[in-house]
């Protein structure tokens, strides 16, 4: 497969790049590692007129420890860089394990944290070759108001497969969106829309410049199930964080990923553990609540029954492991 034609813009500074994004608006697409975008372009799922790469902007490739003990990670840091950081592994195991689980070493060498957070949603109907799609009807993601995976759907159910997203949500991270007009910072829990087509709140002209993670306050864990350990997008992911003891936690955050257009905060499961602590009974109840929160439909390659069983097992195993991590 060959890439479609495009004009390539490689700014020397962040300001220059933001200016290019402002100028070309929706005609411009941002590229970082290209490990996902270039493939989508080969499949003609994305055919931007202008491709803007921030790879020459050194400030985006830095990871820094903040004075309060938190961390700031530039959008252009590669996943290999993150996975190789001892500080990240010590402070935020959930994020470390999440980025380490992405693709293969080859992919992580190119892929960046900014790109992983903004990763486009995927769907088994649409993410196919152009020829495959030509023989079938369009969908929300291409050109019509229809979903062929979930027939009655009123919106696109393509799946958000970002591995870093659930982990960053559990860690209370914020993202900084920069544009020619200035910057805005928002919690990553507010970054995603539950819609496979318009899956983030980012506007044309905006660029996710960096991620801020508050100082670590408790334990965190990340779990992923995929067909193969290497390369495959997840069938389901789960990140969990707990502050305080198993018996009486001060705060709990549980997030499911790769099961819908946005990572899902498991409110009911959180309530159960906040109310009664982390023990055999509450882990079972939290896993059942996670399963119940998924609804009947699925956009996975597997039937919804499989997804429901998978989620229960994933949540249960990960919470058991998190419980055992208590110092």
């Amino acid at each position: 497969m060959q890439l479609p034609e495009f004009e390539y813009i490689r700014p020397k500074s962040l300001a220059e790049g933001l200016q290019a994004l402002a100028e070309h608006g929706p005609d411009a697409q941002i590229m970082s590692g290209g490990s996902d975008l270039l493939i989508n372009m080969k499949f003609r799922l994305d055919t931007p007129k202008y491709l803007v790469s921030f790879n020459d902007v050194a400030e985006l490739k830095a990871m820094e420890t903040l004075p309060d003990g938190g961390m700031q990670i530039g959008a252009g840091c590669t996943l290999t860089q993150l996975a190789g950081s001892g500080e990240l592994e010590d402070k935020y195991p959930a994020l470390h394990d999440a980025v380490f689980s992405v693709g293969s070493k080859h992919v992580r060498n190119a892929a960046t944290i900014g790109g992983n957070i903004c990763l486009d949603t995927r769907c088994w109907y649409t993410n196919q070759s152009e020829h495959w799609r030509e023989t079938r009807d369009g969908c929300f993601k291409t050109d019509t108001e229809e979903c062929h995976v979930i027939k009655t759907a009123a919106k696109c159910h393509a799946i958000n497969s970002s591995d870093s997203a659930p982990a960053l949500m559990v860690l209370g991270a914020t993202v900084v969106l920069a544009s020619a007009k200035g910057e805005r910072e928002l919690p990553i829990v507010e970054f995603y829309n539950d819609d496979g087509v318009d899956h983030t709140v980012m506007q044309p002209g905006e660029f996710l410049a960096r991620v801020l993670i508050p100082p670590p306050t408790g334990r965190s864990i990340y779990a992923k199930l995929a067909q193969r350990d290497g390369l495959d997008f997840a069938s389901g992911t789960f990140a969990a964080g707990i502050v305080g003891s198993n018996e009486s936690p001060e705060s709990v955050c549980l997030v499911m990923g790769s099961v819908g257009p946005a990572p899902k905060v498991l409110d009911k499961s959180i309530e159960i553990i906040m109310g009664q602590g982390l023990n055999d009974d509450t882990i079972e109840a939290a896993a059942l609540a996670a399963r119940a929160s998924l609804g009947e439909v699925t956009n996975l390659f597997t039937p919804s029954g499989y997804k429901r069983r998978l989620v229960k097992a994933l949540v249960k195993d990960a919470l058991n492991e998190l419980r055992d991590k208590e110092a």
Partner: protein
Amino acid sequence: MAKQIITLTVNGDEHELAVAPYQTLLEVLRDELDLIGTKRGCTAGSCGVCTVNGEQGEAVLSCCTLAVDWNGRSVTTVEGVQEGTELHPIQKKFLEHGAVQCGFCTPGLVMSAKALLDVNTSPTERDINEAMAGAICRCTGHIKVKIAIREAAKALREREGAG
């Protein structure tokens, strides 16, 4: 679409090339420089047969890399692995242990293994699995490939010791 002049060093040789922004590194290596050792497989980053090594020796999927992004930089392809007239220990061990069947994936496997052994000559089983997860063989399997990599690591360690 306007082409851009880039300088690309491949296996130590500097080339000045006019490339379009949408040409991948793989296309330039194979179609412009005739270095057809680097294979064109899935062209979607899943199979690893197009693996070359970047400036730090890292594994790079040349099918998912824009050639213009490689302006002023250097890459090593499978044609640049042998040491003078001698094969590299990785290549020797692949031959010795029959880690090749049809051979199509071999350049990608060799370059992926080299990315690992260049920085780590005492890899654990996990290190090898991690480094090779992105390079897939669909006929001979991965058992002999892993034996060859372990043996190549041993040969490289012995050489380090002797040096």
